[in-house]
C-alpha cells in the first residue's frame, strides 16, 4: 500500500508537466514569444506561486507563447534558471519575488536581449525591472467608503506580518478616509502571521470594542477570523486581494482586488510589442490589474452619494488627478 502511494506520488510529480504539452495554435506574429518563470516554491500552494503559474498559463493560452517554468529555491538556482532562459534566447523571464533581484541583474548583464522582471523589488537595469502592484489605489477607495458610511468615526485595519507592501495599503486606506474626514480615526493591529484565524478574530473584536465599525484586513488566510468577528458584531468590512464577498456576504461591502495573472500577461504584451520601458512597473487601475469590486448584495445599503463619490474618485485616480499616497 505504501509502495503504491509512493509510486503514485512520484508519477504525479512527473505527470505535472504533461498537461502543458499541447500548445495552442499561435495566433500572434511569428517568431513565437518565449517566456520563462521562476517561482520560489511549489506552484500547487494555492497562493503566491499558484497565481504566478496561472499568469504564465494565460501568457501561453492568450498569446501562444512558448513557456517554461522552474521551481527555484536557492540563489544558485535563481541564477542558473535565469541564465538558462537567457542562453536559450527567451524574450522574457519572470522571477516571482523580491529575492530574485540580484540574480536578475547578473543575468541581465549577460543576456541583454532577454527582459528580466521580478515581482516586487527596486532593482532596475536596461533589461531588468520589478513590477509593483498598486493595491493602494483600491484601498484608498475603501477608506473613502469607510469614512462616509461609518457612524462612529472609527475604522480598524488588521495586518498579518508588518511588511512594507501591507503597511502601504494601510497608509492609502487612512489617506482615503481622511480625505473625507480629517479627524477620522483608523486603528492598526498586526497579528504577526498570516494563518492564525483566532488571533485575527480577537484583534477584530478588540477594534470593534474600541468603536470601529469598518474593518479592512491584509491577513491572507487569517482574514477569515476578521469576517467571523464582523459577522458576530454586525459591523462591515472589506475583502482584500480577491473578491471575497462570498466568504461573508452579509458584512463585506466591497473588496480591493488584485489580478496578478493579468499583470504577467500585461508585461508579456509590453515585451512582445517592444513597448517595454525599464523602470519600476507600477501596475494598477489603468492596466486593469487593481480594482474595487462591490458586493452587489450590500451595495444598495450604501448611500447613493457614497457610490457616486467612489466612482468620481476612481475616475480621478485613473486620470491621474488624484495621487494616492504610497507607504514607500
Amino acid at each position, binding site marked *: 500500500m505504501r509502495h503504491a502511494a509512493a*509510486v503514485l*506520488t*512520484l*508519477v504525479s*510529480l*512527473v*505527470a*505535472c*508537466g*504533461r498537461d*502543458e*504539452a499541447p500548445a495552442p495554435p499561435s495566433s500572434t506574429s511569428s517568431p513565437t514569444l518565449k517566456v*520563462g518563470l521562476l517561482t*520560489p516554491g*511549489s506552484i500547487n500552494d494555492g497562493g503566491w506561486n499558484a497565481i504566478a503559474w496561472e499568469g504564465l498559463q494565460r501568457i501561453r493560452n492568450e498569446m501562444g507563447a512558448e513557456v*517554461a*517554468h*522552474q*521551481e*527555484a*529555491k*536557492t*540563489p*544558485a*538556482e535563481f*541564477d*542558473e*534558471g535565469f*541564465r*538558462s*532562459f537567457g*542562453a536559450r534566447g527567451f524574450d522574457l523571464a519572470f522571477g516571482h519575488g*523580491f*529575492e530574485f533581484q*540580484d540574480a536578475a541583474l547578473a543575468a541581465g548583464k549577460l543576456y541583454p536581449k532577454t527582459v528580466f522582471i521580478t515581482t*516586487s*523589488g*527596486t532593482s532596475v537595469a536596461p533589461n531588468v525591472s520589478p513590477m509593483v502592484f498598486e493595491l493602494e489605489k483600491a484601498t484608498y477607495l475603501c477608506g473613502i467608503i469607510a469614512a462616509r458610511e461609518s457612524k462612529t468615526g472609527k475604522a480598524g485595519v488588521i495586518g498579518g*506580518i*508588518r*511588511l*512594507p507592501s501591507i503597511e502601504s495599503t494601510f497608509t492609502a486606506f487612512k489617506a482615503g478616509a481622511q480625505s473625507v474626514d480629517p479627524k477620522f480615526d483608523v486603528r492598526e493591529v498586526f497579528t504577526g502571521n498570516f494563518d492564525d484565524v483566532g488571533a485575527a478574530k480577537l484583534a477584530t473584536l478588540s477594534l470593534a470594542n474600541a468603536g470601529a465599525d469598518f474593518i479592512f484586513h491584509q491577513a491572507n488566510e487569517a482574514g477569515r477570523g476578521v469576517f467571523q468577528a464582523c459577522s458576530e458584531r454586525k459591523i462591515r468590512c472589506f475583502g482584500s486581494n480577491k473578491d471575497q464577498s462570498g466568504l461573508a456576504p452579509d458584512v463585506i461591502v466591497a473588496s480591493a482586488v488584485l489580478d496578478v495573472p493579468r499583470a504577467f500577461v500585461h508585461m508579456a504584451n509590453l515585451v512582445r510589442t517592444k513597448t517595454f520601458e525599464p523602470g519600476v512597473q507600477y501596475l494598477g487601475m489603468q492596466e486593469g490589474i487593481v480594482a474595487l469590486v462591490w458586493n452587489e448584495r450590500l451595495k444598495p445599503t450604501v448611500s447613493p452619494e457614497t457610490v457616486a463619490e467612489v466612482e468620481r474618485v476612481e475616475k480621478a485616480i485613473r486620470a491621474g488627478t488624484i495621487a494616492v499616497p504610497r507607504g*514607500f
Partner: protein
Amino acid sequence: MTRLLIGIGAAALAIAVLAMAAALAGHSPADVVGVLFDGALGSPLAIRGTILKSIPLLLTGLCVVIAFRAGVWNIGAEGQFIVGAIAAWMGSPYGTIASMLAAAVAGAVWSSIATAMRLWRNAPEVLTTILLNFIAVHILGWVVNGPLRETSARYPQSDPAASALPQLAEIHAGSLISIATAIAAWWLLYRTTEGLRLRATGLNPSAARHAGINVPAQIARAMAISGAIAGVAGGVELLGVTHRLFERLAVGYGYSGIAVALLAGLHPLGSIASALFFGAFVTGAGELQRTSGISAAIATFGQAVVILAVVAAGALLTSRKPADA
C-alpha cells in the same frame, strides 16, 4: 568496498526509479534521463550549476559524517548552517577569513547547545538538534525583519555582505574550502588518535569508555567540529552565492547533507563524489523542469530513494551477519 557498491547501487536505483516513473507518466525514460544528464553536465553553465550546488552539500555532508561517526545523530546541520551564515554576514566587514572563522564558531556553538543538553540532562540530540533548527530559522526571520534589514528597509533581507569569496571561472573559493575540509576530515578520522577515539566512541561507547576514552568529552568535541563545518557551509554559501541574508536562505542543505553522508557510507572522501552526484541530480532536475515541465521536486524524491536504499542495504548486510556481541 561494500560501501562503494551500495552507494553506486543506490544512486543507480534513484535514477532507475525516476525513469520508471517517467515511463508510467508517459514520458520516454531515455529522454528524461538524457535531459537529466545534459542539464547537469552538458554545458559549462550546467557544470557550474552542479559544482555550485555540490559545495554546500559536501560541507553539510561532512558535518553529518563527523557526528554520525562519533555516534551522535546531528540532524541540526540546517540550523548550524543558518547561524553560520548570519555570523559570516556580521563578520564580513573584517574580511573573508574573519567571516569564515565567525561562521565556524557560530556553527560549533549552536551544535554545542545540543551537546550540553545531552550531557547535562540526557536530552536526545536527534530532538534537540531538530528543534534548534526551528529556532535558527526564526532567528534568521527576525534579523532580516529587524536589526539586519537592508538600509532602505524595504524588503526583509540584509544588505549585501561587506566581503565576498574570490571567484575563479565564476566558481567561488568555497569549492576549495569544501574539498580541503573533506581531506582534513579524512585526516582527522583515519590518521590521528583523536579520529581513532572518535570512531571508537561511535562504534561502541562502553568499550571506548573501558579503553580509557572520555566519552562525553569526545562527543562534545565531535559535535563542535560537526557544527563548525555546517557553520562554514552557511558562511561559504553567503559569501559565495547569496551575499545577502533572507528568510529562505537555507532550503534543506542541512537535511540533504544526511543523504550525502549516507550515500558516501559516512566516508569523508566518498562525500565528494556523493555531493557531486546530488548536486548534479538537483541541477539536472532543474533543467528537466524547464524543458519538460517535470517538477524539480523529483530531486527530493531521488534523495529519499537513495537514503532508503542505503539504509535497507545496511540492514540486510547486518542481519545476514549476526552480531558478535
